[in-house]
């Protein structure tokens, strides 16, 4: 078994493709769902990610863990989808969305609904920090931002999510 280090320097085992799928397919699906907000698109994303992994397996140098590499492939794929849909539909932008006017502010907003209101970039931060428990540094490396940026954006995202849930 080949030994490699992840971003944090922790040595992890190298898994075969079937093992990788069994171990990380669900996480890739969740991550894709946090970005694309559509179950069918998220499933397509999982398939594409593992196909891309198969095609580019030899270019994996071991600078990060296999899971992180899969996360990065997923991110790149999903944001390409988002960009192409944004170019078609100019309604979206990179900032946090406003609460739609048709929404009944008197009723409690569920967490699921509140997460759908956030932009993919902010959903991504919440997923990586809250579910995957990545550090700021790891999130910064995956998303290509600075640590300070990640810290501030995550704080703002939580603030806004809290406001939505409190119906502010």
């Amino acid at each position: 078994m080949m030994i490699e280090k992840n971003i944090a320097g922790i040595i992890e085992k190298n898994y075969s493709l079937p093992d990788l799928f069994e171990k990380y397919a669900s996480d890739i699906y969740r991550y894709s769902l946090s970005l694309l907000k559509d179950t069918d698109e998220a499933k397509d994303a999982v398939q594409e990610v593992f196909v891309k992994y198969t095609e580019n397996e030899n270019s994996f140098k071991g600078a990060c863990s296999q899971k992180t590499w899969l996360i990065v492939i997923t991110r790149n794929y999903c944001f390409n989808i988002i960009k192409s849909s944004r170019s078609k539909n100019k309604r979206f932008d990179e900032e946090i969305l406003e609460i739609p006017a048709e929404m009944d502010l008197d009723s409690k907003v569920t967490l699921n609904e509140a997460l759908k209101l956030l932009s993919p970039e902010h959903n991504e931060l919440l997923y990586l920090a809250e579910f995957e428990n990545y550090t700021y540094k790891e999130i910064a490396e995956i998303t290509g931002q600075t640590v300070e940026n990640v810290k501030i954006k995550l704080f703002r995202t939580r603030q806004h999510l809290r406001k939505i849930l409190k119906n502010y």
Partner: protein
Amino acid sequence: MKEIELQISRFIDGELPFEEQGEFFKALSLNEDARNMLNEYSELKRGIKGHYTGLDIDLSSLKVPLNKEPENKYKKYFYFSAAASIIILIASSFLFTRFFAFQSEIEQVKEGYIRVNNELEGYKKERDTFKTVLAQEARITSPQMVPAVKNKTFKPIPGEKTAINSQRKYTSRIDLNLDAFTTVKITKDDFLVQPIIGN
């Protein structure tokens, strides 16, 4: 309040440095709103984690190439190396064949040279033998013969004619009685092919 809110966000992410935690807990102890905010953020974290954990995930319909054959990177080089080996084998065979042929040619030339050299030595011996015999015969048949002496001038024998204004330092005169010899016409071919004396 914004400052403490940022610290709460960092704290629940596990990113608040140890040296700041003392002041943070002190602020929390004095601020009820901050404590409520910490509870809300903690609950939010649990909620988000539960949201993603509780997703109904069914990926059985996916067609992922799991049984990919391990890429044998040496396979693509196999045919190239096989062809190269065959070419090298053929070239080596050709070169060895030419080498051995060239070697045999060298041997033939060597043998030819030795044969010619031996013949030449034979001819030289025959020539020397003939000279010796010729000189012996000349001495036998002509007592008047005056041997050649280098760097000496001869006094002419009375009655003998000498070359006028000769620049030669010595003179050799051989007065042979050729009748003592068998009349054999000697040609170049005879000289080389058969012995002259005793034939």
